[in-house]
């Protein structure tokens, strides 16, 4: 029941926001007395030519970073053919006082499950271009990661992110410190310290109880969570460093370049081999990323003549050791996983309110998975997408998207198509969009 009370309280607040807006006499854009509130409605008609398995096949694309067991699968993979109600997102934001501003976003799934996606406060009074964010937030790693789904140019998560970070990207509970340099060009350095207990792919951890049960069942002996010899997940495990640079190219175009590096110091994985060997590994995972974004701003009205080009590349590398093995003499077996992922997307506002987008993404680039001296290559999967988006206003859009996927999974290679017809509407406050 709690979730309904929470949703009700948020909606009640929203009506007071509407009333307050009308009485407002101040023009300070930050000075609305009540928080800005909005609800994002998102739904789609979906189809593919693999019996509705299209999204699951993408999630299971060959990867050195499969997390076996432990985490509940996220609801996003279950796109079914026909009508899908995607997450309904509630957001509230505003100034707390002169020292802090705050942001909250929560998603209600089509089943009515309420999930707190972000809840953070950020300092607004530190000197020298410093800002601190605390709470749960989307990491500033890469470029696309911080974007909320309603500001994506495509209906689905790109395959590169999906393969390394999962559908939701990198987020977590912790602290972020950023420093903006006092220069004419934009130079921002950021450092994040996160608990790192909710990553879906690179840097994921396992649920020891759950895995111990699986192992007990498989081996027919009693194995407890303690027998897995995993280190205590005690304190923050994930550190992320980001650098963003943008030269001043005037009012008609913009370029932003960025680098990221992340280390998860206690990643874990559960492996089930075909010969019946079962083992659990633990170690650290590093992720490196580079990104470039170029935007040419519209020359006409309603987005006409604007175009953009975005590219990101990530490389992840995990060095782990078997801390539990069904063959006792294999304890300490070194297991390494490494692979790259990349996507490039382009958009063009070819007419007022109309945008055409192309995207190509790949996972498993140069991927390798090795146990001891045995090495297996990860096979490449690819995704090509085209999307046509009609922006009725800033608050609502309709999108038709086509994906051509070439996915290597457990059962070999599959080439197939996906089609999305999506609506995405924002009810409430006029959100300001970051670059």
């Amino acid at each position, binding site marked *: 029941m709690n979730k309904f009370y929470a949703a009700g309280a948020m909606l009640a607040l929203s009506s007071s926001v509407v009333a307050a807006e009308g009485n407002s006499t101040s*023009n300070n854009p930050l000075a609305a007395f009540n928080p800005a509130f909005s609800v994002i409605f998102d739904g789609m008609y979906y189809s593919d030519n693999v019996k509705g398995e299209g999204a699951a096949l993408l999630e299971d694309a060959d990867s050195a970073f499969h997390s076996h067991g432990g985490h509940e699968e996220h609801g996003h993979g279950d796109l079914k053919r026909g009508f899908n109600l995607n997450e309904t997102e509630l957001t509230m934001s505003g100034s707390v006082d002169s020292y802090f501003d705050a942001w909250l976003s929560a998603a209600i799934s089509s089943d009515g499950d309420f999930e707190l996606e972000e809840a953070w406060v950020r300092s607004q009074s530190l000197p020298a271009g410093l800002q601190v964010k605390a709470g749960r937030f989307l990491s500033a790693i890469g470029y696309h990661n911080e974007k909320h789904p309603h500001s994506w140019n495509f209906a689905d998560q790109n395959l590169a992110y999906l393969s390394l970070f999962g559908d939701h990207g990198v987020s977590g509970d912790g602290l972020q410190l950023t420093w903006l340099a006092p220069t004419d060009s934009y130079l921002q350095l950021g450092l994040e310290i996160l608990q790192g207990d909710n990553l879906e792919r690179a840097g994921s951890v396992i649920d020891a109880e759950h895995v111990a049960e699986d192992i007990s069942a498989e081996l027919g002996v009693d194995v407890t969570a303690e027998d897995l010899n995993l280190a205590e997940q005690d304190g923050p495990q994930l550190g992320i460093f980001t650098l963003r640079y943008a030269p001043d190219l005037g009012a008609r175009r913009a370029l932003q370049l960025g680098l990221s590096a992340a280390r998860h110091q206690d990643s874990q994985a559960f492996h089930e081999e075909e010969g019946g060997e079962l083992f659990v590994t633990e170690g650290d995972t590093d992720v490196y990323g580079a990104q470039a974004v170029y935007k040419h701003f519209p020359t006409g*009205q309603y987005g006409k003549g604007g175009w953009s080009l975005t590219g990101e590349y990530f490389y992840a590398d995990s060095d782990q050791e078997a801390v539990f093995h069904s063959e006792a003499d294999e304890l300490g077996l070194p297991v390494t996983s490494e692979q790259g992922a990349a996507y490039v997307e382009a958009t063009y506002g070819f007419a007022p309110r109309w945008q055409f987008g192309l995207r190509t993404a790949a996972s498993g680039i140069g991927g390798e998975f090795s146990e001891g001296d045995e090495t297996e290559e990860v096979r490449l999967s690819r995704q090509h997408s085209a999307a046509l988006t009609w922006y009725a206003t800033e608050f609502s859009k309709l999108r038709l998207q086509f994906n051509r996927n070439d996915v290597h999974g457990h059962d070999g290679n599959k080439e197939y198509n996906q089609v999305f017809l999506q609506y995405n509407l924002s009810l409430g406050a006029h959100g300001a969009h970051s670059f």
Partner: protein
Amino acid sequence: MTLQSTTLRVRGLLIAALCAASFSAHADLRILACEPEWGQLATEIGGDLVTVKTASAPGQDAHHIQARPSLLAQVRRADMVLCTGAGLETGWLPVLLNRGGNPDVRQAPGLFMAAEQVDRLEIPVTLDRADGDVHAMGNPHVHMDPRRVITISQQLAERFATLDPDHADRYRQQQQAWQAALEPRVDAWEKQAASLKGLKVISYHRTWAYLLDWLEMTRVDELEPKPGLPPTPGHLASLVDKAGKEQVGLILYQPINGDKAPNWLASRTAACAVELPFSPGEEGTDTLTSLYDTLIQRLTHALQACEGGKA
């Protein structure tokens, strides 16, 4: 000259140079103006005491500027952010102020909203997004009326004086000089525009509310069916009738609107389409003064030509 006196003199020069360096670093007020009209006004009032950067280019639609990273870098070092306000920059200014890492410009005196300084037109009675892109605080395009801009310039000079008290008098003097030069021009423009008084027009967007208010012209309708939505065939067709009934004389549009819809309507009615600049910096209008000059000229010429040509 003894060695000691040389050392003293060198030291004196060094101190003087250091003082000058730190002085000039503080003498400049760094201003980030959201739109060219306010950048222009800041330059007129601040003269060489201010360094002005402008977030949007002349002719760009200020509703839809992106919070690009280089603007964050400008906010970071700004002493003042100078914008229209009244909701015009809702889509991007909050990002700049929240992520610029500069507490001084998040509120007054470091934040100056020009439209806040004057009476605004078209403050809606009801607020509903179904009515299009309406601004709760009224029409924000106040720089189209030089009388309002004069009021704003006085407030701006006072704000500069608050932020840089050492030069308070100079800001006030520069403002007075600018006002003294503009006021006779305003009288002259009003005489020149006498023929426009009472003229009925259709405008593309609600861009010209303050110009029409100043010159006592009347807007009958807009080409946009609702603010922020492009013209539709149905709406345009209804305007053909309306323009005839109401005896509309001119159809006003900006270069960014494109001339398609205005010309379509002009070809079916007695009215003539006229393209008008909106911001200083657009072709032949480097200052606010030349902007008003161009506006009046274009309007009066268009009306003459229209009455001659279509009658």
